């Protein structure tokens, strides 16, 4: 079958599923709702696989496949079609998205069974999948923005799923607004891009950008920075990351799908997709790397002290997204995408396993009230352990090891690599291993601190939840093997595979990059990575299994520092005091009461009115009559006159 039809068949089923469940779901039984929802995402996955297969077989590969379905917007010179752009990057994205989404749909069947709003949940989830696929298949920036905002909408709806809870609806609103600030950057960047190359179509844009003369570097840098503002909003980077931890108010499958595996990686996808633009504005790329690296480190330090299992994972996600940006920013885009893929598997697994824990614990998320759960939750424990190994970068069996290593190598040796980026990234790797094993120990090992009431019905989740966990665990291990490192005589096949996508950008970057003076060599870089992971894991095991009094002592000794960490550097509070409150006060007290009601309306408008009235009071004695009746007569006369003329001339 033709690729354009297959792609449509991949994208559309979730939309149909969302429409069916959205309109009729109220009358459906839960079984029907989940059948529609899971069926739609299953179909998507099947057609994603088929498309990948057909594309791989096609003669034009690895050239991108583009297809325009219909003209969506045309005004003046601006044109945006409903068009798809499918290349190897799209292929990776669609496969990752649909596979993870399908598994999470399956998992949700069990997880959401007793939660209420079952049909609403699946409607939003399907709609999300549709929007996400639109985002990654879109053939121009305008259509990409549709998916971009669409996933934001679904995120808003799903974070606020338990809408009677104030904290949930607050979190949804915050997510939408903060990401929208980023979207403003995206839009401005797109506007600038349009007036530079006169097109929004990927193919045209990428071709034009390559041909741009050197003096456009400044413009390209500006566009790159603006696009990255959008990416930073969506992918929760400094300083726009604040919405993601709060987003954990949503049901756990949502956290896994949207806030770990797919939507939050859209920013990374945007940067990778626009790699050629960033390559022509290397300063923008440097900013991407720096922000990514700092975010990775910053979020990891917060994760060190969190006691809420999901929040810890949320900060971990922010940190890992930082790694992906670090990779892209250092000029090794393929490594960033590689980490995006492995992260999608192990992080969604971590969240789903956390959901399984939460399920068993009647909604409890405080790790201080867990411990020793491995006896009761065997499968959950095993899968959580595998995912922890993956994210911590344990060699060979952790997929995160392979992808993170590529990023760190790039941070050192990539076209835009800097030693300090590498070292900070490596330190962050140690922090990652530490906080993840800390979480693992607090949850599953040691003595049980479970409250008796909750301990009573601790149970492993049913198979509809554990099977997806096991499948994801499988991927969490093997996903890393697709790119065997060169240090071990591998060929980094994944990078090789994406090479055609990033070739133009890489060519520009390599030609511009200064010769790297200091390099550690792949073996040493890998050695340091392993060392970092080892230190992190060892410390966590020592402090949280053996000598459990150490963390408390440390917290006491460094009380001030600990307080700052546990309050997440007071960033939320700062935003509240510096932006939210002043804006409200100024709007209400000054703009509305003083300017609008006071100055404009009170003095200027009504003042004029009163002045005139005073004057009129003198003059009124001349006139006496009913104005409206005058007016009505004027109208009637005019109409009759018109009718007369028309008939006379007809």
């Amino acid at each position: 079958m033709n690729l354009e039809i297959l792609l449509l068949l991949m994208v559309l089923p979730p939309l149909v599923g969302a429409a069916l469940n959205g309109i009729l779901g109220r009358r459906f039984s839960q079984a029907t709702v989940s059948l529609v929802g899971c069926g739609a995402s299953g179909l998507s996955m099947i057609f994603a696989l088929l498309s990948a297969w057909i594309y791989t077989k096609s003669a034009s590969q690895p050239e991108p496949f583009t297809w325009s379905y219909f003209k969506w917007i045309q005004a003046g010179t601006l044109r945006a079609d409903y068009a798809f752009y499918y290349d190897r990057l799209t292929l990776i994205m669609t496969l990752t998205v649909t596979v993870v989404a399908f598994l999470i749909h399956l998992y949700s069947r069990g997880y959401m069974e007793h939660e209420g709003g079952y049909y609403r949940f699946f409607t939003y989830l399907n709609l999300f999948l549709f929007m996400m696929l639109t985002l990654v298949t879109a053939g121009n920036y305008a259509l990409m923005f549709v998916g971009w905002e669409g996933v934001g909408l679904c995120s808003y709806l799903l974070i606020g799923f338990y809408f009677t809870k104030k904290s949930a609806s607050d979190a949804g609103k915050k997510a939408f607004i903060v990401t929208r600030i980023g979207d403003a950057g995206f839009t401005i960047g797109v506007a600038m891009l349009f007036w530079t190359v006169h097109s929004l179509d990927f193919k045209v844009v990428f071709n034009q950008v390559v041909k741009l003369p050197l003096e456009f570097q400044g413009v390209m840098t500006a566009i790159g920075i603006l696009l990255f503002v959008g990416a930073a909003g969506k992918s929760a980077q400094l300083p726009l990351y604040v919405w993601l931890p709060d987003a954990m108010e949503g049901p756990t499958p949502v956290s896994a799908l949207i806030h770990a595996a797919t939507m939050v990686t859209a920013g990374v996808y945007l940067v990778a997709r626009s790699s050629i633009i960033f390559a022509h504005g290397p300063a923008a790329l440097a900013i991407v790397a720096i922000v990514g690296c700092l975010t990775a480190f910053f979020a990891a330090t917060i994760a060190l002290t969190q006691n809420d299992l999901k929040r810890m994972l949320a900060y971990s996600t922010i940190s890992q997204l930082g790694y992906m940006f670090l990779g892209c920013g250092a000029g090794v885009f393929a490594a960033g995408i590689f980490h995006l893929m492995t992260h999608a598997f192990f992080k969604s697994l971590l969240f789903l396993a956390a959901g399984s824990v939460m399920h068993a614990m009647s909604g409890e998320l405080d790790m201080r009230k867990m411990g020793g759960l491995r006896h009761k939750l065997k499968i959950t424990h095993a899968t959580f352990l595998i995912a922890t190994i993956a994210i911590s970068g344990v060699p060979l069996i952790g997929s995160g090891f392979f992808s993170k290593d590529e990023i760190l190598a790039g941070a050192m040796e990539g076209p835009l690599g800097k030693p300090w980026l590498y070292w900070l990234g490596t330190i962050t790797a140690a922090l990652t291993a530490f906080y993840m094993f800390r979480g693992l120990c607090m949850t599953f090992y040691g003595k049980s601190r479970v409250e008796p009431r909750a301990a009573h019905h601790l149970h492993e989740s049913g198979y509809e939840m554990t099977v997806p966990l096991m499948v994801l665990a499988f991927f969490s291990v093997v996903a890393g093997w697709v790119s065997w490192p060169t240090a071990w005589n591998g060929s980094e096949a994944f990078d090789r595979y994406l090479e055609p996508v990033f070739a133009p950008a890489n060519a520009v970057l390599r030609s511009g990059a200064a010769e790297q003076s200091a390099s550690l060599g792949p073996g040493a870089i890998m050695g340091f990575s392993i060392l970092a992971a080892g230190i992190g894991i060892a410390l966590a095991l020592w402090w949280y299994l053996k000598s459990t009094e150490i963390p408390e002592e440390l917290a006491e000794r460094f009380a001030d520092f600990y307080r700052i960490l546990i309050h997440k550097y007071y960033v939320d509070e700062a935003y509240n005091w510096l932006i939210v409150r002043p804006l409200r006060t100024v709007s209400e007290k000054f703009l509305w009461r003083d300017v609008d009601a006071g100055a404009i309306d009170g003095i200027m408008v009504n003042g004029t009115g009163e002045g005139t009235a005073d004057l009129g009071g003198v003059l009124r004695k001349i006139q006496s009559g009913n104005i409206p009746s005058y007016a009505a007569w004027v109208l009637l006369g005019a109409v009759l006159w018109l009718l007369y003329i028309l008939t006379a001339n007809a």
Partner: protein
Amino acid sequence: MDWLNEHTLTIVIFLPLLGAVVIALLGRTRASSARAVALLFSLLTFLVSMRVYLGFETCHGFEEMVPWMGSPPVNYHLAVDGLSAFMILLTGFLTPLCVLVSWKSITERANEFFIFLLALQTGMIGVFASLDLLLFFFFWEVMLIPMYFLIGIWGHERRVYASIKFVLYTMLGSALMLTGIIYLYNVTGSFDLPRVMDHLVNYSALSPVAERWLFLAFFIAFAIKVPVFPFHTWLPDAHVEAPTAGSVILAGVLLKMGTYGMLRFCLPLFPDAANAFAPVICFLAIVGIIYGALVAMVQPDLKKLVAYSSVAHLGFCVLGIFIMRPEAVEGAIYQMFSHGVSTGALFMLVGMLYDRRHTRLIKEFGGLATSMPIYSTFFLIVTLSSLGLPIMNGFVGEFLIIVGSFYRHASYTVFASIGVVLAAVYLLWAYQRVFYGEITKEKNRNIADCDLREKLILTIMVIVIIGMGVYPQPFLRRLDRGVTTMMFRLNRKSLLLTDRAPARHPGVGR
């Protein structure tokens, strides 16, 4: 058939008035027959307006030309292009829905209500179809009268204040515009728009100073109507006090007359002045966008919030128009229509809530999503369309305006984008306070969800909202040629236009 084809515009203008006459002739029968007649005639008008919209390209804009007065020579000259046909379609679309919205909520003096509503429609369509300056002015003024009564009789507590304020404000602008029209007649010897335009273009009859004064006379009249900051304070009062149908028409159509006038008169007649004032006007538009949004954010009254959001949305339209690039202008026109639909729908929704609870204060609500799931879903969709979410109508216009605005100056784009963020802030915050959370007021617990009539109205609105977002091309296509020609003429005539875009590099672009 020929007669019908030749007089399509006359029919679409006076069909509603005919309906008003029929209702008047019915006398004091029951309200039900009056509203049925009103619905029938407004639906017929909608059909004719569809005909106008779909056929204007092949039928030479349905031009009609009949001498009206000999001296001075005033003609009954009608014709439409993509812009005016689009606005007539909007009017035709919204009026039947207004009749439906008022179906139950207008119980007192219903006959008269529908008479005024239909008469108002005649005035509005007349404004959009007139090509004669004096005829235009005539309809412009005529329209005020029914609106005055709609607010003054069927409005809420402060209706008299609001209606007088509305009329006086508009009259001030009208006086200026009339002066301008007469001056133009003295210069060109005609009231006929095409002739006036030809004369001005071919003979350069206006001194730059005169052109600027004339531009201002027209612009202020339209700016009051839009309303452009700082002429906007009549709007919250009029909107809040008007009955639902009045607010819908006010926001949906009447405000668009301002932007329509700018496009129809200010730009083509006084291009140099327009260019000269464009930076100031764009600045005011941006102030309107940000200011409207911020003031909307802190409104305790839901209807007032929607009213101030109109100030912000219309700011986008004015900004788009004075960018004077086809992309932005088409975006502005699209936004005019789409604001009519979205904000119209918002006013309908607020009206439905008011019918139930007789209050519009946000703090009186909370948790309605639990008790009114269907209503809250509709409200959410309309809210999202109003904040410009893609695949809904609001996005297309906003996107075109924002992208287009960059052509003039990057700062416009930045501030307009901030406006988009603020729209999300005030709308989602209001939505949260009204619909989310636990039910706190007992009265909200057993509040009725949408009935069939309301579902019908809202479903139609949602279909249009999504339809216009998913497939805007049929609309944009009809605008494109006219707007592009107009902008070409504008930019050719005045080479003052500074080109700031880096696009003109010889090696790049098309």
